[in-house]
């Protein structure tokens, strides 16, 4: 059996809202007891619509947010950021790429500085080596060394997402959490970024947690799929099992709602319209 990079048992996250002068606050159950397990080099895709708690789960896995209840293991080691601060070694193991490449890069920071910042904070690599590593990473994600001194506004959406991926990889993480990394991108650019992610996974034996609402992307990239609905994992299994035989009614709704771009379904639609 291969090693398990990420394991979560019974993750719960509640948010308390309101509770002002008039009336008591209420509790929102964002994540209601989710279990998951990802092996090294595999991709787990988490699917669901906005508000289903998938990004909250991503924040918990990335150790940005503490779960209300439940246990999180990274590389077999128990993590509890509510109890004690995270060591730099743990912080290095998990990195995240956010959805909006326009919002997640500081407009006043040059690309080189964007890439070197994680090293300054989490490691004691000397300046010359930081620079060298940033240059290497730039070429790895398909950019040029001359991009080092440019600002984020000089790049297109796809290039910015490459920069965000490069930044996440600077610390050689074991686990990369991708929160809707391609939903803001055009189709052909989306294909380039997905190819890049596949190449990087092979090269660094990375483990991915891939959050998306686009089922066609999930089908392409995932090994395992989890479908979330109102904070619960309503379906969890291997990609083939989930796609060929969805059990939960919500999963079926989701599949039915996804537009189909094959010739057969266009024919059917046109026939329906003509009738």
């Amino acid at each position: 059996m291969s090693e398990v990079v990420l394991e979560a048992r019974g993750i719960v996250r509640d948010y308390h809202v309101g509770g002002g002068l008039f009336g008591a606050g209420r509790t929102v159950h964002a994540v209601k007891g989710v279990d998951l397990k990802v092996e090294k080099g595999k991709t787990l895709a988490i699917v669901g619509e906005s508000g289903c708690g998938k990004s909250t789960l991503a924040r918990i896995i990335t150790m940005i947010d503490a779960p209300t209840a439940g246990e999180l293991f990274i590389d077999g080691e128990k993590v509890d950021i509510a109890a004690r601060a995270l060591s730099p070694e743990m912080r290095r193991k998990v990195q995240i790429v956010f959805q909006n490449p326009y919002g997640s890069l500081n407009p006043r920071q040059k690309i080189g500085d964007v890439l070197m910042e994680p090293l300054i904070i989490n490691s004691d690599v000397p300046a010359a080596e930081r620079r060298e590593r940033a240059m290497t990473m730039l070429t790895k994600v398909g950019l040029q060394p001359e991009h080092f001194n440019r600002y984020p506004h000089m790049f297109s959406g796809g290039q910015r997402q490459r920069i965000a991926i490069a930044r996440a990889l600077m610390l050689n993480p074991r686990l990369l959490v991708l929160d809707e990394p391609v939903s803001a991108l055009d189709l052909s650019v989306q294909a380039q970024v997905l190819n890049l992610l596949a190449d990087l996974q092979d090269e660094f034996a990375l483990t991915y947690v891939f959050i998306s609402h686009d089922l066609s992307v999930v089908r392409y990239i995932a090994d395992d799929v989890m479908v979330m609905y109102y904070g619960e994992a309503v379906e969890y299994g291997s990609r083939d099992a989930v796609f060929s035989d969805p059990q939960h009614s919500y999963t079926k709704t989701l599949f039915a709602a996804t537009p189909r771009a094959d010739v057969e379904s266009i024919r059917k639609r046109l026939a329906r319209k003509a009738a």
Partner: protein
Amino acid sequence: MALLEIENLTVTFDTASGPLRAVDGISLSIDKGEILAIVGESGSGKSVSMLAVMGLLPWTATVTADRMAFEGRDILNLSPTERRRIIGKDIAMIFQEPIASLNPCFTVGFQIEEALKQHMGLDGAARRKRAIALFEAVGIPDPEERLSHFPHQMSGGQCQRVMIAMAISCEPKLLIADEPTTALDVTIQKQILDLLMNLQSEQGMGMIMITHNMGVVAETADRVVVQYKGKKMEEADVLSLFETPQHAYTRALLSALPENATGDRLPTVSDFSIEGDPYQGAKTEGARA
């Protein structure tokens, strides 16, 4: 006679670094009751060409065309007053971001009645009745109560329904939908597309669907125009476009769909050589940097 006819439309923007041609010689036409999809990536000029039809471009834009006619009437050289009579009434548009396109300072009821007041000349009571009927038509529950809500009190899908209600309020002959579902979840996207299709067939409107999602094209369009860097690459009916795409760029777009992936890697647009590409050799993505 076609509902909307455009021949050789070009739009040029004056920028600090010289003129930028966003739309370069586009011709298209749409008939009554037809759904035309315009597909392309961001920067392909698909929204700009429709904004030119609406007359909503900023003053830095220069619009020229051999012919731009709505129901046989020239709409290129209209005076602002004449244009206002057509825009919003006979030609209506739905924008991409529903929450950003509604005014946050006014209730949705006020905003929908404003259009009715301007174009239909109804009195207060009749406007309210019509607004309630419209909200019912687009599937907003409790329409009477909802009229007094502000945009921030509604979800993205609900706001898009309000936008659609506003667009169809004056029974337009042509509805332009600019990426109407891009910001929405797939389940909501399905509802909105079904709603648009139903309204379109009920009222016999012409509809132009601007999108970059090939799935949406496959589910809605009768005819498709593929646009790339301001030029029209291909025009075909929807079935032949998906079955036998003629142009290299269309083939590239279709093969970049993850569901069409055959091997380990997805082909990208730069894997195809595109004839007539003004930036031949430059990669799609690197072109801007």
